[in-house]
Each structure stands twice: as structure tokens, then as C-alpha cells.
């Protein structure tokens, strides 16, 4: 427990009043001194009790992406029977570097507060040490309690608008088909409405029943395929590599949402073709933790099905030899 700036002033004033009281023996100054001392005592006692029996739970409402505002749900529980807790600052100093203020937690209850944080790097962040801090009630003293919180949050690479980066991608060659399947009249399934679906495909009757917009999926069973080859072979090019990873993630996001089957090929990791959100997050999980490697061990381009996009860190990349097999080569420094 440490005094705040105001607390130091208050303590100095108390000291001076104490000198005045003992010097004069005037009981009215003793009365003022008693008031000052009682405020100091209550500051200490209430502050200690305020931070007692608190537990914290953390959860992330939505996936977390680099440079995007991440919102954590901070649930602070007060196990005290009588006294509520006020003005609790919850801080996670390392890693997540988030902070929020919980103004009030009733006794034997909990309060959920949003804590915002923005990450600058992808990867896995462990919650680790967090701090409860408070200056309640008079802001004279500051006390904090450190505790360890298990769990982690995975931060995915930044998702960018790829249309702006590579306008060619939006051309018909790649994105002519907005459904999961090749065009056709054969009925496949009824699924939820997705961005890009034609309004004419909406099944109003089913939508009314389910309460969600549903569309009829028609086509042939021939899926549209996209292979993303990410150059993560050394030498290190930290800046370009991060751009490449972010672009790979953006590409996967865009095309999976368009209904493509997408696979990811990197030095040591291959995520086979797949579609849907679950598959997207498989790719994003891999991209969140990917590092540059020494050797290329992944069987690649044996059978280049569908469209292939090669993302290179530089013009001198060892992977450049794979360029002829790909439909498109993207250089990260140009992104």
C-alpha cells in the first residue's frame, strides 16, 4: 500500500497538525487531528477490505485479431458477505496489457465489465499475472493485489481488405462464384444466408420458421478450390513476413466466406482443403503462431487443384520456383 500524491499531501498536513496539537495542547486541534487520523485509518482499513475476497474470470466474446479492438468480458466476483467493493482497477500488465475499472461489485455477487485491448502482434497470450488495484474511498492510498489467472487468448493475424491490396482478386477469374459450389440447378441444401448470396435465393418460408434468413443452395458437387502457399522459409524478413501472414489470413477469410475450399501450405504445415468457419479458424490458428523456418518440408504443389496463390516474402525467395504452378504470385513487400 502506497500513498497517492494527494495522500502524501494529506499525511504532511496531518503531521503539521499533530505538531500544532502537541505544541499548543489545544483540544480543538486534537479534534481536527483525530479527524485526519481517522480518515487515514479508514482509508487503509476500507481499502484493504475493499480488495478482499475478489475473484476474476476472463473471457473473450469474439475472435481477436491484430490491430482490431478486442473486447474481453471481465467478471469480478465479490465473496464478501456484507461489504460491496468499489472502484476496482483490473490490470493485466504483461502481454494483454489491458485495464478496466469495475465501479461496483455488490456483496456475494459479481459484475461483468468490458475490457478493451488492442494487440499489435499475433500469437498466443497467456493471461498470467493480473492486478486488482484501488484507491477507494478517499484516493489517499493505493493498494494492489497480484494474482495469477490461468488461460490464454489467441490473437490472429490482421485481416485486411484484400480488394484494395490486390484488385485482380476481385476480378471474375477468382471470384465469379459466390456459392460454395460450381453453378448448377441441382438442389444441395438449405443454409443460412451469407454475405454475397443473391436475394432471390432466400427461402422465405424456411426463414420464417427458423427466424433466420435461409437460402437455397444449388449447384454441382464440384467445389471451387484455393491453395494459399505462404513463404515462411528463412532468411528472416520480419516485416515482410508479417505482411505475408496477414495477407494469407485475409485471403483465407475472404475466400472461405465466399464458399471456396481453401488449403494452406507452409514450410512444415499443411492445412488441407476445407470450407466453413471452422476451417477458417484452423487456418487462422496456424497463421497465428507461424514462424519462419529453416527448411521446406511440406509436400507442395504435387497436385495443384483449383486456384493457387503464392505469397512470397521477397523477390529472392527460394520458393519462387513454385511460381509457374500458381495462378497468382504476391510479393509481401508490395502489400
Amino acid at each position, binding site marked *: 500500500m502506497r500513498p497517492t*500524491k*494527494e495522500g502524501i*499531501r494529506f499525511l504532511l*498536513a496531518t503531521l503539521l*497538525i499533530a*505538531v*500544532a*496539537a*502537541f*505544541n*499548543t*495542547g*489545544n*483540544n*480543538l*486541534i*486534537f*479534534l*481536527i*487531528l*483525530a*479527524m485526519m*487520523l*481517522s*480518515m487515514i*485509518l*479508514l482509508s487503509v482499513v*476500507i481499502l484493504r477490505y475493499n480488495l478482499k475476497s475478489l475473484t476474476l474470470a476472463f473471457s473473450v466474446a469474439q475472435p481477436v485479431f491484430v490491430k482490431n479492438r478486442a473486447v474481453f468480458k471481465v467478471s469480478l466476483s465479490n465473496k464478501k458477505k456484507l461489504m*460491496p467493493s*468499489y*472502484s476496482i482497477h483490473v*490490470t*493485466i*500488465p*504483461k502481454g494483454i*496489457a489491458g*485495464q478496466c*475499472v469495475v*465501479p*461496483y461489485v455488490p456483496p456475494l455477487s459479481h459484475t461483468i465489465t468490458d475490457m478493451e485491448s488492442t494487440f499489435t502482434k499475433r500469437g498466443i497470450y497467456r493471461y498470467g499475472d493480473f492486478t486488482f488495484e484501488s*484507491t*477507494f*474511498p*478517499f*484516493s489517499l492510498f493505493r493498494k494492489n493485489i497480484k494474482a495469477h489467472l490461468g488461460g490464454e487468448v489467441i490473437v490472429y493475424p490482421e485481416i485486411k481488405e484484400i480488394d484494395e491490396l490486390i484488385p485482380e482478386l476481385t476480378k471474375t477469374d477468382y471470384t465469379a462464384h459466390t456459392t460454395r459450389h460450381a453453378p448448377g440447378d441441382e438442389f444441395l441444401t438449405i443454409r443460412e444466408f451469407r454475405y454475397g448470396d443473391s436475394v432471390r435465393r432466400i427461402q422465405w418460408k424456411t426463414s420464417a420458421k427458423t427466424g433466420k434468413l435461409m437460402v437455397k443452395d444449388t449447384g454441382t458437387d464440384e467445389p471451387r478450390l484455393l491453395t494459399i502457399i505462404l513463404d515462411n522459409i528463412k532468411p528472416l524478413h520480419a516485416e515482410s513476413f508479417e505482411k505475408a501472414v496477414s495477407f494469407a489470413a485475409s485471403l483465407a477469410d475472404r475466400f472461405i466466406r465466399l464458399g471456396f475450399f481453401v488449403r494452406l501450405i507452409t514450410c512444415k504445415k499443411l492445412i488441407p482443403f476445407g470450407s466453413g468457419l471452422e476451417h477458417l479458424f484452423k487456418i487462422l490458428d496456424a497463421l497465428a503462431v507461424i514462424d519462419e523456418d529453416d527448411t521446406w518440408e511440406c509436400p507442395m504443389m504435387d497436385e495443384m487443384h483449383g486456384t493457387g496463390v503464392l505469397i512470397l516474402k521477397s523477390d529472392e525467395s527460394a520458393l519462387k520456383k513454385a511460381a509457374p504452378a500458381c495462378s497468382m504470385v504476391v510479393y509481401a513487400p508490395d502489400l
Partner: protein
Amino acid sequence: MPRIYKVLTALLAVTGCAGLFITGPLNPVMLIPALGLIPGYIRLWKDMPPAQKWIVNSLSVSALFLFAFDALIVTGDFFIAVAHLTIVFQAIKSFDLKEPWDHLQVYFMSLLQLIIASELTRSIVFGAVFIIFLIALVTAMVISHFLKEGTYRKIKLKMPVTVISILTLLTTGMFFISAPRVKGGIVGKSRVTGIKTAGFSEKVAFGSFGEVKLDSTIVMRVEMPEKTPAQLYWRGMTLDYFDGTSWLDTIKKRDRVSKYENIFVILPVSLDNATVQKIFIEPIDSDVIFGLGSIVGIEIDLRAMFTDGSGAVFAPEKSPKRLAYTAYSVLEEQPASDNISDYLQFPSKLEKIGKFTDEITKNSKTGIEKASKIENYLKTNYKYSLKTAPPAAGTNPIENFLFNSKAGYCEHYATAMALMLRRAGIPSRIVTGFAGGEKNKYGGYIIVRQSDAHSWVEAVIDRRWKRFDPTPPAPQFKMPSLPSLYIDSLRLKWYRYVVNFNSSDQKNLISYISMPFVKIPKIPEIRIDGLKAVFYIFLIAGFMAITIFLLSRIKIRRYGFVTADYMRFRRYLKRKGAKITASSTPSDIAEEASKLGMSEKAFEFIRLYEMARFGGKELSSDQKERYKSINKNIR
């Protein structure tokens, strides 16, 4: 800013000024600036912008000049001038309230005003002001906390504020009771002025009782645990020499009284049968200690007591504060010493009184007969009057009373009788003190007022000092109302339990609480003498610490505010545990700051610092403000 917060700030400012106002000795003209509080806080209430900086600064400088003028010329009292200055500053500050820190400054100033007030008054009104101040301060500080946190609107404040206020009141009481007391203080002296009394100095001019007899100011309050005697004569001092116009106390020798345990023993008699009086006496302009009959023992929180052999008891000096003591008195007549011839002194040129005495006492043989005849004669043939015309030129005031006006008050009667007794060969003296008093049914104590001031006669009859009171009964003054008596009982409690609370009370309280379970060890008394050296050491150490602190600030100020703030930030991080050495660069500082979870603001702060230091141009005013703001908020 919430309105309640504004109201509380205004209330605290007004409470501080009111605390000073109730003390009395302030100059009414110098209190006029307090009116500035009204428009100041109305502006704040209406969310009007604060006054311009140059106006506030000019007014502040003018206030300092006014203070110098006040201290040197108007009041000539530095302490009172400081009190006036705080009022002026409160008024100026009411026009300049922006940040929460400005409000805190108002609170600190009000606190200072209360401290000044506590040195100028002991009134019970101070107690009321103090309680209002305490509750307002606690509420304002709790609200200030939530405002600072930005969570004011999200909290229901009634419960925490109420609970914390009650707890603060209770713990204040606890600290007040338990704080160790230094008997009489160390080097400070109270500035409370005593009540102007008459008759309790070495020389008492004839006619000086007239004024005080019209004054209803309370001088003493007396609690008598046992039965109250029928006649209450609160004996003060004796006067033995009359020069024709004034009475003098010529017994210069005062003996120090021995103390056994807690009691100063004036006469070595048993206290078992003594009449006990707990007396609370207001600060008066005399060192005389009052009590019924002859005080034989006294329990008082003073370092020494003195007696002059005539039964009068004296404190070492005039007490600037209320005294509370327990007097043990015997009401029986005390034996006279062998050397009583001084009490037969008679001024020349008053021979007419001699013949007059002879006429009245012509058939009396014994001393008691003569004394009783004189007493009765004066009581029955003269009128009590406070309106006495001055005697004609060349006429002695006593002769004028006895032979012309035949009306007067106690002083006339007592003097006339004392002189007549002396003329009849009976040693006599004048005793000054108070007679009577009214019983307050709220509290069951006796109130003694200035108007009860009295003088009577003591004469040696059968080798004992016998009291005679030749003054006829005075007309009754208007009786005090019941509410005023009730308020006075509260006042007594205030004096008894707050103003005069001392180490003896602490001991009694501890004994009361712990008995009969624990035997309390003897608590040593803290005396002033031994503490003086400690006080001066603390004073010097404090002065040196402040000087070093100010010098360090001056050293930092040399660099200009940008570097000064940067250095402060470095020191702050170091205190927080960051690894910062003399060779740490701004980038290192930023990195260390980010490790402590303040990356964003720290980077911006360092960027602005580098821009100012190495960028080759000054920061814009917005950037300066931003720089200051980050530095303020980051810590």
C-alpha cells in the same frame, strides 16, 4: 461536474469562513471579501467559465499586499491577518475552480481556517461547524474519488457516504480520546482572550465592581456531587490595605503548594469531610483560583499552585484556556495567625467614620456584637443600588456612601464595614469572589456569572476569621430562559468532555472501562519541559527537509518544464521498479514504461519529449498541453 460536488465545495468554503467568523476577534472590514464567495459559487453553480488567469493572479498578489497592510497596520496581529488572508483566498478561489485539484485546495484552505479558528475560540459552535465540516469533507472526498475514476454516474453514493461518514465520526472520537496529551502544550500559547473581571488583582480601585455587576457572562460552572451548602461564597482573594480610594493586597509572598499524588495540599487536613466542587472556569484575566470557604486541597492539571497564607490560591499564571479542577473546601472558620495587626490599618482623614462607628457600637462589648451591629446597621439602613453618583470634589467615596448617598453595591458595603471594624479595633479584610449562582436543572450544576461578582468582609472574632456580608440583597435580574439553560448544559458538556479533556480523563476512562478486570499500570504524565528539546529537533529537521525538497525542485526547474517533466517521469518509473540508469535513453525509458503496462501514453510522451529536445523547434501550445496532461495522467 455534478451539482452536489459544487454544493459541497461551497459548503466547505463557507464552513471554513464561518469557523473563523464565530471566533469574534476578526476585523469586520476585513471580512467583507467573504461576500465574494456568493457570486463565485453562483458562477460555479451556473457552469460559467472560471475567471481569467490574469485576474485571479492580480487578485492573489493584491491579497498578499492587503495581508501585509493588515498585519502591520490594520490589526497589527500576524495571526489574525493570516485568518483574514485565508478568507480572501477562499473568495478568489471560488472564481477559479476548474480541476478536482482546485476543489481539494478549497478543502485544505478550509481545514487551515478551522485550525486558526480552534486557536481563537473554544465555543461550542466550533463543534457544530466541525461536524458539518467533517461530513462535508468525507462526502466531497468520496465523490471526488469517483469523479477521478470516471465512475460517478454508475454508483449510488448514499450508502457508502453515510457509512463512511459515521465511521469517520466514530473513529475521530476514538482518536480524540486516545491521543496522548501534553500537559499545557510545548511552546505554543493560546490566543483566547480572558473575561475581564474586577476585584482579582493586587490593587482594586473603588467602584470597579459596578460594571461587572451588570454583565451576565458566565464565569464558572460548578458541579457539586454532594449536598450544596445554603450559602455559596466562592472565595477568590483578600485585600488588606485601603489607601482611601483603592484596596491593595500587600501580602506579596506566595508559597508553592506541595503535591501529594494528584492533589495540591493547601492545608494539611483530612479531605474526607471536605466539600467537593468540580469547577469549570472560563479564561479570566486573573490567576486566582475560586472555591467555597477555605480551599484545603485542589486537583488541577497545572504544574504548580501557590497560596499567600490568607487562604487565597493562585495558579502559576493567568490561564489562557478554561480550567477544570476539583476543589476540596472546609466551610468552618479558619484560625487567624498571630500577626494580624496589619488588618487594623486605617487611612488618615477618615476620622468621621470612627465617630460613626463608635455611635453604632456604643453598647456592644464583644467583637462579635460589634461586628453584627455594624453588619445589621448597613444591611437595614442603606439601599442596594448600582447607580451611584460620583462624590463631590474633596469628598471620600466611602464617606459619601455612609453619610450622603446611603446607596451602593457590595464594594461600598464591604469597604465601609471593614473600615468600621478596624475603627472598632477588630482586624478585618475584604474578600473578593462570587456569591450565589443559579442551579441549572439541565445538568444539575451551578452557573456563576460576572453579575455574581461580590465582595464581603472577614473579621477576626475569637481568633478565627469570620465572614460578614453587610450588603443587602440585590434585586433579582431577569432569569435565563429554559432553552438558554439547556444550551448552557450542552456547553458545559462540550467544555468538560472536549475542550478540557486531558490525560487524567484518559486515565479515568481506561480505569472505568477495564475495571475490575485488569489492573491498569500507572501511565506516565507527559510534561512539557522534557519535550521542548524534541520539539526543536523536529522543527529543525522539518525545516531542513523542506529546504532540501525546495532546492531539489529549483534544480529541476532549471531545465524548463519539458525536461523537468521527463526527469520526474524517469524517477517515477524507477520508483515503480523499472531498470533505469544514468545512461538510459528516452527509448529505454519508453520500453521500461511499456513493461509496466503504460506503453501507449509513454511512447507519446517520449515522442513529444524528443520532439522538444532534439527536434529543433518548440512544441506548439496544444502539444505542450498534451505533454503536461500525459505526464499528469500517466502516474
